[in-house]
């Protein structure tokens, strides 16, 4: 399994043809207390760069962009009652949705962890 990162602070952990998507720990720290997550419908098609998901913090609602194109195969139902999982466990238990990749070639545009960490340091 390989994890890739976007400049918009999403991560996608890819296992075969399936990617699990979330926001990075840096992103959750910037957003603050998350109170609600609007997840995409299972089975919906997403395009790389679309915003199928929104996280609400006390302060604001923020888009989460799809790191790749594909079909939503699963969503993290635990977030309905415990959206704070995105704060406490952003890069694991606070995952948002899973997507069946339409084009694995899109991953080439994303960053690896070292590149992402460098990118965050530069912000």
């Amino acid at each position, binding site marked *: 399994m390989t994890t890739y990162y976007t*400049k*918009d*602070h*999403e991560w996608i952990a890819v296992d075969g043809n399936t990617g699990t998507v979330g*926001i990075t720990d840096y*992103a959750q720290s*910037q*957003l*603050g*207390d998350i*109170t*609600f997550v*609007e997840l995409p419908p299972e089975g919906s098609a997403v395009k790389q760069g679309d*915003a199928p998901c*929104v*996280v*609400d*913090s*006390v*302060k*604001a*609602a*923020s*888009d*989460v*962009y799809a790191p790749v194109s594909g079909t939503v195969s699963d969503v993290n139902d635990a977030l309905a009652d415990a*959206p704070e999982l995105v704060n406490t466990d952003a890069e694991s238990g606070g995952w948002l949705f899973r997507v069946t990749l339409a084009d694995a070639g899109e991953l080439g545009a994303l960053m690896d962890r070292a590149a992402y960490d460098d990118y965050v340091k530069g*912000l």
Partner: protein
Amino acid sequence: MNRVPILCGALAVSHDPASHESALEEANDNLDPPEPEILPLDAWHRARGARMVPFAGYWMPVQYDGIIAEHLWTREQAGLFDVSHMGQLAVSGDGAAAALEALLPGDISALKPGRQRYSLLLDETGGILDDLMVTNRGDYFYVVVNGATKWDDIAHLREHLPDEITLNHLDEHGLLALQGPKAAAALAALGLVPAFPGMPEVTALKFMQAAAYHWGDVPLGVSRSGYTGEDGYEISVRAADIAALADALCAQPQVRPIGLGARDSLRLEAGLPLYGHDLTPETDPVSAGLAFAISKRRRAEGGFMGSEAVLAALASGTPTLRIGLALEGRQAAREGALVYAGAQEVGRVTSGGFSPSLNHPIAMAFVTAAHAADGTALEIDVRGKRLPARVVPMPFVPHRYFR
């Protein structure tokens, strides 16, 4: 408009619902971003781990530990807020009360020394230019106005106050707010001494009373008031002394520094409108639910800027009213969201968010008068989804003022 990409810290800043900046100011900022100014406690906030954001032209702390934790701490203990961005003004001279009454709808002539009153700066059409606090400090009126509007307010006052009235901007003073059920105990622990015989101890001050004190050799102007719905104080202090005072207050175990994020969620729960969002020049005191700020004598006599329009609105009612909405579920409705009764658009949310004390979202909205009654079932459009909401009385969380 409310949605912003997860793109660096700026996201949490530019669409901050607590921001006083209008869309126009934001647009101007994009053309020529002015560098925010530094307030006297800037380094103090940074040393305590605050996340600083540009707000009302200053770098301000939006949060320290997290908005929910800070919010709940203030409701249970005492929170210290730096509100030094606000404008502190002194209006003095023979006839100052009458001069202020030409611009404000409050009974300033009847305001006794040591008493504070909420009032409004109105334009010729009764539109709200700002909301403010006026205190009779004996030899002058002390006026606190919003940070984002203070320069416009000063210009308005200079233009309309007669020449014999002096307006001073107390810009060498900072302002702290100490709010929460433990605020009185925490302030009392500092051992403030009333500046004049006969003035009450800080713990004996009642809501909307004010007095001068000495903390050692530091003079303080203290009022029992605030913007959270809790008991508490607002403390005017020389900029040179504000860090020492903030340190002394935060040395009390009940006191923690609180950022602007929690200030916004606390005032929303308290049903208190925020200028630039719930109040604008397009809103008037009657539709905004602020008719209490128009005193009986002023209603009878008029004679304040905008009085014709405001008195007409008092007599005949207004087409829209500011109301509170309680939402089901957890998804919040933000400023700008449209409010519906069935298929009919009946209003617009002016501020909204998740209530940490109630654990569900709440909002303020202006809706048509026919849909403003408590208990009315409405819907709010949030990103194409209709969220059920119910009109509820404000405050959402009961006030706990010391009366």
